[in-house]
């Protein structure tokens, strides 16, 4: 019996290591965190941001798997919603940036002016889409 347990432990351990390496490599490579650090001119605290990312990953996983209760729910829930929204918004745009969506479109359709309008449309469209998705319970 304990052989199987050890085997399972090895499976779980290796799975965790590989998954976390892959996921966090993606987060770093998409450049969300370096974006935040650059925009706020706080690149000197980059090690702190890494610590927070690491802690977030570790605790988030524990909360998800073991259904840990979250304290201060009235404050924590809206905060979690807002901040994860900001994070995912930047993530999506960071992904679009890496895939060169904008340069390709701007070159193809030959837009040189009013690119701000497109940025605003994308932002509003994403927000409206998310709202519709949740409101309809899809």
């Amino acid at each position, binding site marked *: 019996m304990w052989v199987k347990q050890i085997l399972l432990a090895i499976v779980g351990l290796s799975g965790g290591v590989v998954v976390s390496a892959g996921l966090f490599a993606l987060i770093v490579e998409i450049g969300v965190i370096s974006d935040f650090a650059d925009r706020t001119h706080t690149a000197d605290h980059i090690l702190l941001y890494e610590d927070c990312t690491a802690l977030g990953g570790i605790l988030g996983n524990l909360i998800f798997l073991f259904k840990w209760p979250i304290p201060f729910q009235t404050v924590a829930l809206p905060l979690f919603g807002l901040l994860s929204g900001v*994070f995912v918004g930047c993530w999506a745009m960071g992904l679009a940036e890496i895939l060169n969506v904008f340069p390709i479109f701007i070159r193809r359709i030959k837009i040189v002016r009013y690119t701000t309008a497109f940025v605003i449309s994308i932002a509003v469209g994403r927000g409206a889409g998310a709202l519709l998705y949740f409101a309809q319970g899809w």
Partner: protein
Amino acid sequence: MAANKETLYIKGDRNVEVTNLDVKLGDIVSMECSNKDIIPKVKALKLLKISPQGEHRYVVSVLKIIACIHEQYPGIDVQNMGETDIIITYEEQKTKGKAFHILKTAVVSVLVFVGAAFSIMTFNNDVDVPDVFSQVYRFATGTKSDGFTVLEVSYSIGITLGILTFFNHFGKKRFTVDPTPLEVQMRTYENEIQTALIETASRKGEEFDVGKTDPSGNRRS
């Protein structure tokens, strides 16, 4: 001046921040010359004067710097060992206060913490990790998983180990001397921004190059 047949080596970084409105050559590039008397004189040469309002950014061609030296010391042979285009940013020394900086850092810290937690949860949810675990558990032991087995525990330990190994440090303690992935990414990002700034300036003809007397700076809000 006729005896000035020395070679002056200059080396500049791609991105320089100045706090003084009168930008001198010594603020921008480091210099080396076998004739030590020349260096302080050249360092004191004035390259450009920034108009006082707001923050400004200039892209200066190294040719302009060499021209500036040649104007005063025509006989010097100048060798550039550094960048060919230099971004000069003037920052007003009006510090917005340490409290504001700490506040920004705190907000970003919480933001990336929640973001990372959210990412791992969405990943686990996406690929249905709990379901896979109960299937593996059932396959290995033949009994039904209660959702809290050795698999979940060891997976959590694995996540922790993987993240810490990936980021290569926790707190002040570094595991190896290599820079961390975020440090590398940060430099890559800054490099891309600097390249974009220089190329935009030269495409728009805003670069402060030889033959220009008035630098058209790029004002930032």
